[in-house]
């Protein structure tokens, strides 16, 4: 094990940044089954983190299906009221928001979803998703102005308005449809975009274009982006920081460079080892049997580390208690007993450990991509 250099008793300096959208100890429980044997599934388990306005960063959330990453996104979008904990937008609890305040929150926090087919109503032309947004948020005072805004947004994502507007969703390719969704977000000039697997259903050749567009939205317009994905390579390329989720817990988080190229949590290590690298000289190491779940037959319950039954490094305490979140260094936290010497992060806003990219205007490198 690597030595841990620093004990974090006080959070790092970047807590001073004002949070724009903040989760405080958010837990989401989904219950199912009859009352006498009710099952509780903790989709999100005591997560605190925030997206800041300045600097606006790209934060990736990665994990397997069922890890809670999509639920986390839905909570931040206000689609889901968490079982406990608070969601704050500009310091105000979103559950209590009404009227104009709520509309403002809805406008400032936009979503891009995985499936570029099901977000469209097939009976309406593409224009519809723009005109509805313009009418709802009163963005334009005349139809000419509206038209101008729409064309500007569509050009902004690298599509030609003449080839896009007036068409029906089925007449566009999946990649074009997904870029239209990005254009819709662009039209509203939000402060936050929650992008849930935006490229997983798009061909590799278009994936890069869409991700570059997201990067440009962040770098140039200062939109904070939550990039939810199961693909660690795109997360690495696009994001500044990453949170790895496993069964509702954020098990590791920090600067993307460190987390992916030097993973600390045993689950992150397993994930990174499983990335299919596009390089035939770096094939998967033979891990057959070593990491095939279940690694042990411990039945995982709420009071233990969620990864204990699959963990090759499990200690005795892993089955007795849930690990705290430990601060490994300035830009990394991990929820794993292997690092308990590092010191607990006090009621951690994970974002306090995020690395802040130098986002001064001179550093904008994606300008010509818009």
């Amino acid at each position, binding site marked *: 094990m690597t030595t841990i250099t620093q004990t974090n008793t006080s959070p790092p300096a970047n807590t001073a940044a004002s949070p724009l959208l903040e989760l405080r100890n958010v837990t989401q429980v989904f219950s199912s089954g009859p009352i006498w044997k009710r099952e509780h599934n903790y989709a999100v388990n005591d997560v605190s983190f925030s997206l800041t306005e300045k600097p606006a960063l790209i934060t990736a959330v990665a*994990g*397997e*299906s069922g890890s809670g990453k999509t639920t986390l996104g839905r909570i931040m979008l206000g689609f889901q009221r968490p079982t406990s904990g608070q969601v704050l937008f500009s310091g105000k609890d979103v559950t209590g928001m009404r009227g104009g305040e709520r509309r403002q929150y809805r406008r400032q926090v936009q979503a891009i979803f995985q499936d570029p087919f099901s977000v469209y109503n097939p009976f309406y032309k593409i224009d519809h998703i723009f005109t509805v947004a313009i009418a709802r948020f009163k963005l334009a005072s005349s139809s000419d102005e509206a038209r101008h805004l729409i064309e500007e947004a569509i050009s902004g994502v690298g599509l030609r308005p003449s080839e896009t507007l007036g068409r029906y969703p089925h007449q566009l*390719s*999946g990649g*074009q449809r997904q870029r239209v969704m990005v254009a819709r977000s662009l039209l509203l000039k939000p402060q936050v975009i929650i992008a849930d697997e935006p490229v997983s259903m798009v*061909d*590799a*050749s*278009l*994936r*890069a*274009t*869409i*991700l*570059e567009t997201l*990067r440009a939205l962040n770098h140039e317009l200062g939109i904070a982006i939550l990039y939810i994905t*199961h*693909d*660690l*390579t*795109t997360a*690495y*390329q*696009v994001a500044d920081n990453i949170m790895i989720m496993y069964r509702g817990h954020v098990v590791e988080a920090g600067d993307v460079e460190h987390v*992916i*190229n030097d993973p600390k949590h045993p689950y992150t290590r*397993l*994930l*990174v080892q*499983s*990335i*299919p*690298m*596009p*390089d*035939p*000289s770096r*094939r*998967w190491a033979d*891990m*057959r049997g070593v*990491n*095939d779940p279940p690694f042990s037959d411990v039945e995982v319950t709420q009071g233990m580390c969620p990864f204990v039954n699959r963990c090759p490094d499990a200690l005795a305490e892993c089955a007795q208690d849930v690990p705290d979140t430990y601060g490994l260094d300035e830009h990394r936290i991990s929820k794993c007993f292997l690092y308990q010497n590092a010191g607990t992060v006090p009621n951690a806003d994970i974002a306090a450990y995020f690395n802040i990219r130098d986002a001064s205007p001179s550093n904008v*490198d*994606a300008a010509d*991509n818009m």
Partner: protein
Amino acid sequence: MAEPVLTIRDLRVYFNIRAGTVRAVDGVDLDIAEGEKLGLVGESGSGKTTTALAIMRMIKPPGEIAGGTISLDGRDLVELSEPEMRSVRGNDIAMVPQAAMNALNPVRRVRDQMLDGLRDHGVNESRNRMQDRLTTLMAQVGLNANVLDLFPHELSGGMKQRVTIAMAICHNPRLILADEPTSALDVVVQRQVMETLEDVRSEIGAAVILVGHDMGLMAQFADRIGVMYAGKLVELATVEQIFANPRHPYTRLLISSLPDTDGKKRLQGIPGLPPSLLAVPPGCPFMPRCPEAMDICGVEAPELIGDIDIVSCHLHTETRVA
């Protein structure tokens, strides 16, 4: 190279729709050697899945195999009657489908579905012998025998995909067609399923055609890679060659668009869209998107050249106009 199991020559699959003829696969030549792992990549609509379906003779109207031959051990599958083809499917060529959740019958236990597959191909042994066979098959794909008594909804995505692999190998086929078998799974399960597929493949000595668009997965699994574009095979070479020295501009762009974790870089997409297969323009189908297009590309379609590493591009033809 070992003796080919399957030889495809000038395969053409057309869909006749009201607007005209869609040339989904248009003149594909392919040899698959005994025990070989061939990756077939391309974007949606490039014809990779249609090629796999044509090998299984599962093209549905309005689609049809409009020409060409598909020979398995010297027998032309295109010419077989439907009953003859039925015995080829499963026995000689098996398929691992893309969406395992839709491939299994939701209201029947795994055991009954697997027994169907065995009986349908004339396996009629005693109850005990059949149960033994199923238990062995389950062990081969790394599943516990008690999975046989479960319904599909009780299985995870990875377990379901292993069940479909077990079904595919139950008659020891010569060739397994796997169409994006892990596209719905996360990376850890994906690796495990692919390892299972590789284990059973080497155990029964089958060849595999892996269809997909994930170049990372191809790099991990395939021996050779065929790149399809607009219904045609544009490059075919060993996996090392494809990644180290791609010759077709499309392959080159495809590989440079792949994200990795070796330092951040500008992600480069491939601008433009593939042509409509209703009216493929004359010349090279990739020309409108090609950064290295020459005059001849718009006039004359490039031939496939080469013996082992094959490429279809005027940059590599003898007659190239300087």
